[in-house]
């Protein structure tokens, strides 16, 4: 059991962590995306929509 773990650990160190996993392993990058995306697509876009409602007669 310990042998397998050592081998696995050694193999793991040699493996390059794929970009997607690096992104998901980075909580601060995720925080940035999770705040910016809804801020732009929901809040900013929404506020622009309301601001553009024209004045009526």
């Amino acid at each position: 059991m310990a042998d397998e773990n050592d081998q696995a650990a050694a193999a793991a160190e040699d493996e390059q962590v794929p970009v997607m996993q690096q992104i998901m392993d980075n909580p601060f990058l995720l925080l940035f995306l999770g705040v910016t995306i809804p801020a732009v697509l929901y809040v900013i876009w929404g506020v622009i929509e309301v601001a553009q409602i024209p004045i009526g007669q």
Partner: protein
Amino acid sequence: MAKQEQYRICPATGLRIYRSAENLIKANAVVAVVFLAVGGLFGIGVALTRWPAVHLLPADWFYLALTAHGLDILLVWVIFFEIAILYFASAVLLSSRLATPRWAWAGFILMIVGAAITNYAVLQGQSSVMFTSYPPMQAAPHYYLGIVLFAVGALIGCFVFFGTLVVAKNEHTYEGSVPLVTFGAITAAIIAVFTIASGAIILIPTFLWSVGLVSHIDPVMYKVVYWAMGHSSQQINVAAHVAVWYAIAAILFGAKPLSEKVSRGAYLLYILFLQLASAHHLLVEPGISSAWKIFNTSYAMYLAVLGSLIHGMTVPGSIESAQRARGFTHGMFEWLRKAPWGNPAFSGMFLSLIGFGFLGGITGVVLGTEQINLFMHNTMYVPGHFHGTVAVGTTLAFMAITYLVVPLIFQREIILKGWAKWQPYVFGAGVYGISVFQMAAGVLGVPRRHWDITFADAPLHFSFPDSAVLMMSLNGISALFAFVGGGMFVTVIVGSILFGKSTKSSEVAEEKKPGVAPPIGAAVARYGSAGVHAIPGTAVLVSVFFIAFVLYYFVNWKYVSELWLLG
């Protein structure tokens, strides 16, 4: 230099539990349950008033109680519990010390003070503005102030959580990626930061308006920004209660995620797109384009819903996989039939999962469909939907994990085991009923937030059909079950914490070192190469769910087509 902090080794998992983290988890969890009880008291008052035959509270008290119920459940109870979850998922699961305990305590105090101030404002009677507090309707200034303080306190808690992740990583308390449950907590914390930032952006000017420093708050602009907080706060719940499901499955069954990539990917979809759906509160507002409405209400082409649908398979699938590995392979559902239904942690979790999917999830997508919303907006269908998500989904899941938190963190045995065993079923029956009957009433046109649907004192006359009155009565009865079930929960938990037998053992527990498999779950096969796991039972459950979803979706489009023509 940071002084060496006290910790103990958890006998079940081998994890280090530092004293400060443990105390903060306990404090937040206890206060959470207190506010659950308070919110529940207001809730039964509301339900018994909306039961026309009982009509318990007079109008002014009804609207007051409804405001308080919304606040104490939708904001205070769940967020206090979620802060406890954040500290658990970071400090405990990563065997780490908490980043800045002093700040965590400051946040905790702020949350209590804020919640107390706002509740006080509501009880004074001049702030019956509902949880949504829509301008030009105005509450007392300290109503808004309390919520802002509460939000700042919660934000501090989120920063302590992120700080703890950094500390744990730097101090090498774990190896590789964080556990899946911690990743779920990260998702919840990210949504919480967006939620609170939006809350500050809208409630600070609204507070200034209430004291006369700002002259006007545009009502539609308010709604857009408010709901970035208002609905996102409920999405924190979704991320958190899904993490709770995984945690319970792991603790009770040693269940492993079927695929870390799939489950984390589903959470990533939440992080990116879950908050967009706040738009479903504005589907019948004047002036906003259908493009904005459709894109946002669909969580970006339903990508975040895909996340939920994925968890809907991977959570029960992980349990089935673990159970089958244990030998429960007889037939399609032995794994489920022989699951520990007498253990309230399991029964609460599974009832929460099924109910959230069928009652909360499906109805939420339907309700948030631009045109379908036309015959559901502001009817009782809306609270019916969100009792399916927050009461059946979140609250029942949080109750379930509390049965594990008491022995593992408070180190007390559960007392009144008979009550504990039945509690999820009593509460579950109640909240399932509330959800179903409220939605039925909504389809019949019954309005939400309404003191008297018989219009006894109104200058004009209108009668809802008898079936609508029946639904509100059944809602009242269900609420009684929920109230009893809630009372059982509070009694068992508070009683156990105060009077339960201590589970502290004199033996020295073996510490789990990073990189080595922990003692729990050792019987379960490694995944990866040996991870051949068939989940036929889950496949059947998910298929039933999908068929129900599709049918229900089309039935509601049929209703749309029968409405008057609108263009």
